[in-house]
């Protein structure tokens, strides 16, 4: 009764037979470029120092190459070497499916931006020389730098100081076609303002996007980034936030649609007393690659961060990646941080990679924790629920809905919560076929 009847998709079990071509348990041979034989396989794993060395330039003296602090950051595209797929931060990404975001000049039409905002909010379209560009972000990888080098106009949304918005700022980014393009958005929450900004990505696009988010002192800002792209879309999004003194930042990523989606949210504390929550929800169907890499840089004392990403996977070659970096620097005394990723594998043939990284350079902290769990909704769960009269499709929904609801509830905008609940239902319905 208790034996599981299939062992095929067991997560974490060494498998002689990878279920996604070219993928191994360690992931170092993931890059399709490797399969071409154009790059020699490394003699050691990607986590080893010597293989990381060749790609890291930003460390400076005394910063180990393996530290997140050692990651190269630059506004110049040429500072980043061409990607091979062996880089620590690209080793899970199928580069071939990036459709040129890492190699081409991003000259296609960027997704159109339409903003609906409550009174008081300023929305501007600005050129590359606007002084707010570069105020919160700096590219951390080649694809992001490529967008930085190529974007034409940027959208700047400003919530004025000491304004508490009535209703959300809705930003719809509608794909304008399949030519590789670059996008730039800046969100500024001025001192003691309170706002919710929703970035809704939809339609068909191949786009590398940089989103800069500035929280001035005492600001409270929630940013929701919804990826509800059409199935042919490719989206890389670097979303970087700079957190002022005593500011509160909540960031919620929801990735449902798109062929390849790679969101890399970074939160940096610029002053003490800040709070950051990074939440994520993703649901990968057959063939989808949904990747999320979070980074919280505790460079200031007495800041709090909490990261929770939850994902569901179903269908052949559904692939999700979560890599969570938390760095607690030496001076960041009194830090309280936690990060967790949970995945629910619904069918055979999926792959969930999950890597929580925690670097702590001081012992004088309140707390630091990291966790990862990938579980399977298997035949025995299904049997149990069905043996209580619950039909199969309802049983599946019950489990997934319960699992993902934890994130949806954090949004606190009933209309979006409802929309996402419906979207999850549609994902499930698609899986029933």
């Amino acid at each position, binding site marked *: 009764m208790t034996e599981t009847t299939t062992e095929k998709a067991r997560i974490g079990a060494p498998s002689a037979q990878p279920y996604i071509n070219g993928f191994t348990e360690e992931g170092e041979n993931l890059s399709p470029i490797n399969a071409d034989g154009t790059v020699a396989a490394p003699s050691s794993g990607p986590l080893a120092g010597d293989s990381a060395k060749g790609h890291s330039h930003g460390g400076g003296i005394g910063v180990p190459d393996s530290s997140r602090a050692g990651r190269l950051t630059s506004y110049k595209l040429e500072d980043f070497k061409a990607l091979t797929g062996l880089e620590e931060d690209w080793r899970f990404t199928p580069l071939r499916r990036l459709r040129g975001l890492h190699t081409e000049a991003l000259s296609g039409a960027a997704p159109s931006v339409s903003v609906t905002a409550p009174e008081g909010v300023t929305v501007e379209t600005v050129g590359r020389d606007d002084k707010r560009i570069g105020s919160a972000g700096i590219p951390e990888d080649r694809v992001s730098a490529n967008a930085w080098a190529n974007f034409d106009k940027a959208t700047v949304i400003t919530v004025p100081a000491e304004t508490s918005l009535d209703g959300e700022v809705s930003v719809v980014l509608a794909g304008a076609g399949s030519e590789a393009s670059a996008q730039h958005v800046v969100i500024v929450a001025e001192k003691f303002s309170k706002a919710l900004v929703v970035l809704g990505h939809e339609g068909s696009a191949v786009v590398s996007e940089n989103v800069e988010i500035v929280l001035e002192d005492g600001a409270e800002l929630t940013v929701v980034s919804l990826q509800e792209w059409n199935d042919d879309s490719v989206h890389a999004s670097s979303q970087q936030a700079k957190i002022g003194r005593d500011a509160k930042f909540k960031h919620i990523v929801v990735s449902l649609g798109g062929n390849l989606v790679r969101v890399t949210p970074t939160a940096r504390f610029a002053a003490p007393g800040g709070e950051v929550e990074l939440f994520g929800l993703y649901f990968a169907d057959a063939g989808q690659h949904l990747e999320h890499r979070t980074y919280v840089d505790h460079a200031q004392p007495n800041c709090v961060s909490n990261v929770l990403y939850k994902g569901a996977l179903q269908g052949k070659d559904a692939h999700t990646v979560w890599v969570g970096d938390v760095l607690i620097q030496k001076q960041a005394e009194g830090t309280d941080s936690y990060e967790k990723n949970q995945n629910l594998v619904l069918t055979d043939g999926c792959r969930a990679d999950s890597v929580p990284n925690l670097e702590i350079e001081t012992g004088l902290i309140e707390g630091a924790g990291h966790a990862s769990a990938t579980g399977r909704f298997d035949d025995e769960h299904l*049997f149990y*629920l*069905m*043996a209580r*009269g*619950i039909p199969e499709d309802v049983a599946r929904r019950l489990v997934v809905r319960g*699992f993902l609801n934890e994130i949806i509830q954090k949004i606190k905008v009933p209309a979006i919560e409802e929309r996402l609940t419906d979207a999850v239902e549609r994902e499930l319905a698609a899986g029933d076929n």
Partner: protein
Amino acid sequence: MSTLEIKDLHVSIETEQGTKEILKGVSLTIKTGETHAIMGPNGSGKSTLASTIAGHPRYTVTSGSITLDGEDVLEMSVDERARAGVFLAMQYPVEVPGVTMTNFLRTAKTAIDGEAPALRTWTKDVKAAMQELRIDADFAQRNVNEGFSGGEKKRVEILQLELFKPKFAVLDETDSGLDVDALKVVSEGVNRAHSTGNMGTLLITHYTRILRYIKPDFVHVFVDGKVVEEGGPELADRLEEEGYDRYLSGAGAAVAPAAQA
């Protein structure tokens, strides 16, 4: 009055060594209000019978029939069987991630009854039933069986039995792994459900201990996939004194322990 009828049931499973027959012709008739105890040594096929009635996909029925008031149970899917009134209290209830007990109980009750239970009375019923089974109130907010001890899982099975009110309850070694206090609590729950007079009970057990609390009307002894002896409650007393050796000393002694599933 309902009847669950099992006729000449043959069941096999696929193993690495090939197909293995576990049940070799089992016939049994249970009527509403009756309690039947199925007893037997490890590997005799008791649990296979339970799982086959509930429709676990691991077991293949090669011949014979199971009917509920004349309806072909074997034609029904697992959930249809449950909705038709068959309840299996599992030997090893699984943990279901992401689903709270509250949500699970309400969803199952809705599925079984074909309509959502009236919210106010339902909440009250659940609370009362939990209290009688000494299940902490905070279990309602926890995920199904997640982190429950063995004894807690068994209590939760009986909680469902009491709330779902099936026509037939199959209790698959509900007593195993329980201490005496828990055994009493669980047995009382079964007796409460049974005392409504609307349920037939098939009690599968390895030990006679539970039969001190739940009185069977009939006792069937299972050895090597077949019923080898049948009788009234006195047969249980005899088994308590003599054990199963009497049945195993004969030609059928070679019972593979692995067959217990």
